[in-house]
């Protein structure tokens, strides 16, 4: 599980793969197999569109291939934190371009309409496109925190390590972000009614 957190440090087989991946293509390939789906899923949660997620997933792993020889971590946890930090930066860099942000919003809005058109009842249950549109209103860094915490199910400590911040700061920041998200969603619901 991605969110499995800080256990006592002991050398595992995965740690050995991480060390070898700096010089061995075979070990890097094993790490790729281990993390491809997780990173792709992270991208889908950040970028909504599967096509865009494939592009950004490619950018992330190609960046890993270029930089792994200089990676100094020794454990799988180190690698995971490093990989997610690259993933978060790449997703943020993509979203920061205003035009792309508009396109992602348009895709989410179009999916929202499809869901509403195909739905028999008028329940106010929150769906993924609507939630995504609200998440996209947040700052890119805040979007990362939401994704890591709720979609990747990570503990505060690990999120803090990935984002180079304090655990306590993460907790407070997330509380604020949820408040903002609630407001965005309320506005979206009121707009629907």
């Amino acid at each position, binding site marked *: 599980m991605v969110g499995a957190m800080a256990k006592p440090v002991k050398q595992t087989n995965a740690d050995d793969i991480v060390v070898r991946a700096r010089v061995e*293509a075979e070990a*890097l*390939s094993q790490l790729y197999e281990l993390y491809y789906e997780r990173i792709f899923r992270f991208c889908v949660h950040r970028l909504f569109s599967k096509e865009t997620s*494939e592009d950004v997933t490619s950018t992330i*792993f*190609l960046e890993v*291939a270029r930089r792994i020889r200089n990676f100094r971590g020794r454990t799988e946890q180190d690698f995971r934190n490093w990989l997610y930090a690259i993933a978060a930066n790449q997703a943020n860099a993509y979203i920061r371009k205003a035009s792309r942000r508009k396109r992602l919003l348009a895709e989410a809005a179009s999916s929202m309409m499809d869901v509403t058109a195909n739905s028999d009842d008028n329940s106010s249950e929150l769906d*993924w496109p609507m939630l995504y549109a609200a998440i996209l209103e947040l700052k890119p*860094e805040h979007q990362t925190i939401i994704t890591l915490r709720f979609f990747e199910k990570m503990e505060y400590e690990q999120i803090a390590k990935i984002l180079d911040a304090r655990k306590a700061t993460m907790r407070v920041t997330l509380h604020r972000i949820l408040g903002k998200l*609630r407001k965005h969603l309320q506005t979206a619901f009121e707009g629907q009614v």
Partner: protein
Amino acid sequence: MFKNEDDFKKIVSRLDINEKPSAAHRESLRRQMLSIFNKSGEASKTESRPLWRTIMKSPITKLAIAAAVIIIVVVGAYYLKPDEPTTVSVEVVPEQPTTNKETGPELVALDIELPKPMFVGTPQDVKTPNLERPLGRPRPPFYAPIGTRNVALGKPVFSTDEEPIIGEIEMITDGDKEAADGSFVELGPLKQHVTIDLEAEYNIYAIVIWHYHKQAWVFFDVAVQVSNEPDFITNVKTLFNNDIDNSLGLGVGKDMHYTETSEGKLIDAKGTVARYVRLYSNGSTGSDANHYIEVEIYGKAVE
């Protein structure tokens, strides 16, 4: 609507998201990735270190050079000053007197307490244009009238980013200049500014800024303005501006980019009278975000 984190978790768990990747993309990406990895390995093999560099990096070479320098200094001292005693002695330079004879007895060197350095030396950044060269030694003392003190300590701060990504705005004037996690505030990306309200008019002599000295970053579009009006529309004076392409819209800055160190950046405010100090930045070489650890404003109440 969700009420708390647990509620939100439940909502997320009920979402129907198609997150299955395509097998074709997975395989094609794997091939590309391994190809880049193998190429980078070949490149690093061919980029072997030149012999002269290996020699120059050797500790034995360094020791030999140090010994040669000492011998030259001793011999030089012997021949150039034959009347002086030949014994080499280390002269202990007494601490600078607090008054400066050149500028008058009313001026004293500012006592700026520096945080712990996070790296040794100043790595040379060759990519940033218009970058000033590191001094290579501690900053010389800055003289200001007796009674000048940090008047920004604990004063209110306002920002274009009301909810920083990390930390709180108040940390900019909390007196903590260390670069550790928990000591800095990270504002959002792109152009941002913070304004410190000194709550009264002061003669401002120096402004010292620590953006982020954990690493040798260079912050872009750093500008410092002072005013007596909180809106900075009239009566504004620009004390520093290194915005070389006018992206802030304050005019093209003629000051140089500088590398962050634990000494902070000292800006001579020349005794300007003002109540509000505004600091701009636009990301750095290390991040799109804008960081502040501490800002100190050395001034004296207007008489």
